[in-house]
């Protein structure tokens, strides 16, 4: 039972890394909190559901479409909202409130368009039968979702550490002002990071019916809390930390569900507070305390 909990925890951890990854990228580059992250995940889930229900598209193909479409959707949102927000006095704080507004808009439109009923995609679409891994049996859908998540993490890592734009992005992460002073087109770099962050949230959404259960327009809040716990454990702004945070979160969640299932939903909150109080920078972090 312990081995099964840990193994499935690691598999879920990979997926939770993907859930936190986009949020973390946007915070790292722009120092704004995308509180609408969970709702973008929800939109991804609904996109996958409708593509599957209407034209029978395989979720792996939908995931490519969702990635591209959500990235394109993210760009105009960036230019409409973020430059103005970053010019404000306390942009980090205001971003929470602003994206809360965006979240309300998305949730309201989704409720009007889709109603409040739960939608799901059967797990067998991603492959039949349980899979035997290290002596444990896991659903194939979990493994496929985890594998896609790992692929996405690897691609983001390559983007940040092996490409020219990635180097510029990391420069903006370290210091926005100095990046601006050295002639980097900060807005282009940020817009790209924002689009990628939104696309990653959409991708996480495509696989959420298999990992988090059925999709409803109101699921965004819970997804947000999980995503925040993951990136705070890892440390805000650092993509490697997200992986660590995701794995810790996944394993802890599975252990809680196995041994103390009544209290399992407390976990993200307690982990988040504990990490923030003991090590406010996250496990791999930099300075966040003030005065």
């Amino acid at each position: 039972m312990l081995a099964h909990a840990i193994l499935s925890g690691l598999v879920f951890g990979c997926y939770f890394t993907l859930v936190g990854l986009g949020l973390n990228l946007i915070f790292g580059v722009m120092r704004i909190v995308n509180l609408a992250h969970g709702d973008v995940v929800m939109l991804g889930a609904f996109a996958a559901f409708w593509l599957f229900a209407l034209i029978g598209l395989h979720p792996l193909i939908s995931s490519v479409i969702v990635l591209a479409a959500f990235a394109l959707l993210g760009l105009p949102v960036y230019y409409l909202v973020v430059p103005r927000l970053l010019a404000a006095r306390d942009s980090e704080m205001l971003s929470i409130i602003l994206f809360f507004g965006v979240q309300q808009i998305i949730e309201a439109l989704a409720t009007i368009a889709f109603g409040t009923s739960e939608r799901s995609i059967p797990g067998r679409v991603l492959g039949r039968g349980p899979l035997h891994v290290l002596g444990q049996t896991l659903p194939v859908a979990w493994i496929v979702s985890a594998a896609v998540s790992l692929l996405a993490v690897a691609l983001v890592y390559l983007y940040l550490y092996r490409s020219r734009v990635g180097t510029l992005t990391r420069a903006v992460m370290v210091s926005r002002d100095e990046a601006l002073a050295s002639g980097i087109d900060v807005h282009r770099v940020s817009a790209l990071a924002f689009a990628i962050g939104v696309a990653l949230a959409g991708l996480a959404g495509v696989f959420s019916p298999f990992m988090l259960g059925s999709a409803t327009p109101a699921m965004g809040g819970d997804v947000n809390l999980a995503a925040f716990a993951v990136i705070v454990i890892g440390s805000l702004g650092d993509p490697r930390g997200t992986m660590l945070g995701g794995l810790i979160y996944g394993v802890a969640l599975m252990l809680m569900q196995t041994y103390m299932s009544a209290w399992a939903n407390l976990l993200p909150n307690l982990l988040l507070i504990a990490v923030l109080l003991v090590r406010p920078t996250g496990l791999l972090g930099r300075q966040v305390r003030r005065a």
Partner: protein
Amino acid sequence: MRRGVREFVTVALPLLAALALAPLVYSNELLLFNFIMFLILAQGLNAIYGFTGYLPFGYVGFFGAGAYGFALAVMHLDATPLPAMACAGVAALALGVVLTPLLRLSGAYFAIANLAAAQAVYQVISNPALQDITKGPYGVTLSSVFAPALSYGVALIILAATLILVAWLRNARFGLALQAIREDPVSAAMAGVAVVRGRTIAWLLSALIAGLAGGVFAWHISVFYPETAFDLSFSIFAIVFTLFGGAATQLGPILGVLLLYGLYNVIGITVPQYFQLIYGVLIVLLVLFLPDGLASLVTRRGFRVP
């Protein structure tokens, strides 16, 4: 200080008088009570957000702690309403003390951690495993102390006290010290302001206010569920009302509550999705174009807003 008294007399007294007389001419007392409750919550949030810059996203945690402090005192100690109100205040203060270390965090970290803390308290109270103590997710019934007129009056008194507090903060040395901390904690500390003590006092005061609001809410409606008492929209409403009117003023949050909560009651009850949509658009526009609230339209031209 004389200006504080004048501000209280010109802004708060007419409001309090109107709310005290309103039940005589308007029969929907619950609606009036909700207005009072949101006025208290918005001003309580104003005391911490407006004056220190900390955005307590989980402000509803104190409200819920107060509501359950009241309910537990009535259910298990057979307390009469006024001692139970004291328990509500103590419960929220205790939660405030437990959460004081969160003040070490800055910006978004504080807001998120506070939100998580409120959720954690909710999950503990609503957990079926604690059904014997809190009645878990099934809610509490306090019909033995139900007294709508009296609780309405007590709510008004709490509102008056809160308004006095804000008028005092705006004009006293302590409030100025808090605003100095908000603008630049390091410089404030160098100028001899006790940064940690100032923040902590403001934090506990605003926790106490929310706890009392929660207690009087529990008393007035007397039947409620944990998801009602810990509804995140209490936090959100209080934040948006305060921001809309203008933080760190006395008039701003009042205007915010009257206009926006009024709007909510006109359209929100019948078609909640459309209200949610309008609300979202309003928040986005507000942050982008009027981040300092309605009051800034006037202060920008050099007038002082009470």
